[in-house]
């Protein structure tokens, strides 16, 4: 009983309170024009039809299309008329017969239309006339004509914001004698905010904008308009202009003044505004991106005096600029309709913001690139070339990683190479080095340090640390692994025989300094380096990765001997007749096989990888379920 009573009371209150629910109605050229127009299928075919069906608070959504008018669209209640897909898709055309819109309600909103070819040569507003309130936003208002306000005329109150108002004309009855505000006219009130007003013409006052008695202009760009009096703007009596750029207008001075009470705050125009009616204004060139006819761009360039030079106001807190970005960036609003994002911090001034700069306090360095990208790679060699061995690929196992440092111009400053000798299952005393893959880098522009060579080494270096006698820059990292890691008197070599004592790996860090900052990473190509071992202290016995060429010091007479099937004439190197290699380069840390166990017995998908040409199991070396025979891995 109590529930029924409550329901009754609720319905009674709703019925007699005047409460109603907002309805969304549609307009579409392809609608069936069936009231109440609450779907696209039943949409009204004219905007006025849907508007006339509305109650206060309703929303009218307008589908894509061109709506050609015979009479103006009249909005007199508090509704929103909005395009579905923005102004480029919804076009209202006055057909040069009528003004396009007349709005007369403080809560009425018109959002997202191209408004064109409106005509009202003897009165107010060619595109839109706002009377006593209403808002027009996000519209493109062009090629309209009126006596007052070719594009937009606001009488007493109203707001036009975030609109592009261009190529409109104020020309009373086409007589070419009179006109008030080619783009916009404000009469006794009204506000133009965040608008680009350009290319408009008035035949008398205010090419871009004319204020008669009162009105506010906030954060607009008024440029490239023309009129006999006030080519950009004419302000009469209680006109207030804030944060507005008035420049590059023609036919008369950028601004014209009449009566008293007008004031300009934080504006940019020339000639300089008088001190008695302006505050914090400037006359310097606003430095637009482009004022070239046909390619105008009224965003301020970097360094524009209009950036961060406006006067903040409360409405800006939630407002967007004409690009849809926050109206205030970096604490102080810009002059004009576009807000420039503050340049991110760049402490060293090298042009690379601190957030991207690996050396934010060092202008000579900017980026670090690692190869491999994450962690160490591994080089794994067999050392019996030109004979073949057991394919355990542990005769020398060396982890590596390069750290390339470049500057803001992408030129290489230095490269650090870290090499860790993890194991060598060999009796040969092997050395290791690498060569840059091409001769783009002049050897005199490099200085190398950090290598580990015996005092009486068989290796011979130039003064800059590169190896002598080489056609391409060549770095010898160490000459004898046995000298760097002490054999524990059991097992084959070091760290390959299960049960033999573990020997701590030896780490060598190479520094390659570029004395000429002219080389890019693409030229140095350190990630395509050519590593090799030198076998048993014989400098001419080199073993490289498959199809990597020997250095100048290798003995070419060994090619084609033993099991080697190299063919230098075709670029084929260090492969057997059955295309087997003597070395592998793993992009990540490689857990190598134990002594005398072939890699095919340690890694279960190595065979598929090799026989598929690398297509199958390209990650064969990873520690994934079913990938490894753990007992055969050291």
């Amino acid at each position, binding site marked *: 009983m109590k529930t029924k009573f409550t329901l009754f009371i609720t319905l009674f209150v709703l019925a007699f309170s005047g409460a109603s629910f907002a309805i969304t109605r549609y307009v579409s050229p392809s609608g069936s024009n069936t009231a109440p127009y609450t779907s696209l299928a039943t949409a009204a075919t004219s905007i006025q039809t849907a508007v006339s069906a509305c109650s206060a608070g309703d929303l009218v959504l307008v589908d894509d299309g061109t709506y050609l008018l015979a009479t103006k669209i009249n909005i007199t209640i508090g509704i929103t008329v909005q395009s579905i897909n923005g102004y480029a898709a919804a076009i209202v055309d006055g057909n040069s017969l009528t003004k396009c819109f007349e709005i007369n309600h403080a809560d009425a909103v018109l959002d997202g239309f191209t408004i064109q070819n409106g005509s009202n040569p003897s009165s107010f507003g060619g595109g839109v006339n706002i009377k006593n309130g209403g808002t027009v936003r996000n519209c493109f208002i062009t090629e309209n004509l009126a006596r007052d306000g070719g594009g937009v005329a606001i009488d007493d109150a109203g707001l036009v914001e975030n609109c592009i108002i261009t190529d409109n004309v104020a020309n009373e009855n086409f007589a070419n004698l009179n006109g008030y505000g080619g783009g916009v006219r404000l009469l006794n009130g009204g506000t133009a905010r965040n608008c680009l007003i350009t290319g408009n013409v008035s035949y008398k006052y205010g090419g871009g904008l004319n204020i008669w008695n009162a009105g506010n202009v906030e954060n607009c760009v008024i440029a490239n308009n023309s009129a006999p009096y006030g080519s950009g703007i004419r302000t009469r009596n209680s006109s207030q202009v804030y944060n507005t750029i008035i420049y590059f207008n023609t036919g008369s001075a950028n601004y014209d003044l009449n009566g008293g009470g007008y004031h300009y705050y934080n504006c940019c125009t020339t000639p300089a505004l008088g001190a008695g009616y302006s505050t914090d204004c400037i006359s310097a060139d606003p430095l637009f991106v482009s004022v070239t006819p046909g390619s105008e761009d009224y965003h301020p360039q970097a360094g524009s005096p209009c950036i961060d030079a406006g006067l903040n106001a409360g409405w800006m807190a939630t407002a967007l600029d004409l690009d849809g970005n926050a109206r205030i960036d970096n604490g102080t609003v810009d002059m004009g309709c576009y807000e420039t994002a503050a340049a991110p911090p760049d402490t060293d001034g090298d042009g690379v913001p601190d957030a991207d700069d690996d050396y934010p306090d060092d202008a000579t360095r900017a980026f670090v690139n690692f190869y491999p990208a994450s962690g160490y790679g591994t080089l794994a060699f067999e050392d019996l070339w030109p004979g073949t061995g057991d394919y355990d690929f542990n005769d020398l196992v060396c982890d590596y990683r390069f750290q390339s440092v470049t500057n803001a111009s992408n030129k290489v400053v230095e490269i650090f190479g870290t090499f860790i000798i993890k194991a060598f299952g060999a*009796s040969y005393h092997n050395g290791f080095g690498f060569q840059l893959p091409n001769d783009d880098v002049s050897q005199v522009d490099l200085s190398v340090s950090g290598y580990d060579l015996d005092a009486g080494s068989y290796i011979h270096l130039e003064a800059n640390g590169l190896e002598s006698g080489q056609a391409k820059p060549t770095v010898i990292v160490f000459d004898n692994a046995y000298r760097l890691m002490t054999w524990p008197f059991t097992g084959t070599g070091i760290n390959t025989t299960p049960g033999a004592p573990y020997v701590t790996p030896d780490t060598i860090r190479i520094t390659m300094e570029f004395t000429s900052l002219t080389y890019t990473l*693409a030229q140095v190509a350190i990630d395509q380096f050519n590593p090799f071992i030198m076998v048993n202290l014989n400098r001419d016995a080199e073993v490289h990765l498959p199809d990597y060429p020997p250095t100048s010091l290798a003995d070419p007479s060994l090619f084609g001997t033993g099991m080697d099937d190299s063919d230098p004439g075709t670029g084929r190197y260090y492969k057997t007749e059955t295309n087997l290699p003597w070395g592998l380069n793993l992009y990540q840390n490689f857990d190598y096989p134990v002594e005398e166990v072939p890699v095919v017995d340690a890694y279960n998908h190595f065979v598929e990888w090799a026989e598929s*040409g690398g297509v199958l199991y390209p990650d064969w070396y990873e520690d994934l379920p079913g990938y490894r025979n753990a007992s055969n891995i050291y």
Partner: protein
Amino acid sequence: MKKVSLFIALLLIALLTFPSCRKMDKKAEESASAERMDELTVTPAFSWGTARAVEFSLTSAKNGAVYIRNSKGDCFHKGMLSTGELYTISVMIPSAVSEVKLTQNGTSAVVPITGDKVTYRFN
């Protein structure tokens, strides 16, 4: 008896000191695997590489650092990409990676690697 002991001692020392590293003498037949290395059928063109060089040609409407990363966030490359300039860089990408994420000024795009070249423009 002393001679026998000396012989055994020398033999042990020899075994420990010269632990059969001369693999030239090893025979592949020692492999217990059914799939031995010398049984592999490998095409001559196979490089045995675990990464391949991919050339990136990048342009942008804005200045800003460009990043080339994998899906885990590992950065293969970063450098400065300047307005209107073609930035070309060859980067070694692991063979198992089939797409990369390009990022500049907060804008990202995931692009597949279907060959040895990638071209992309940031707007």
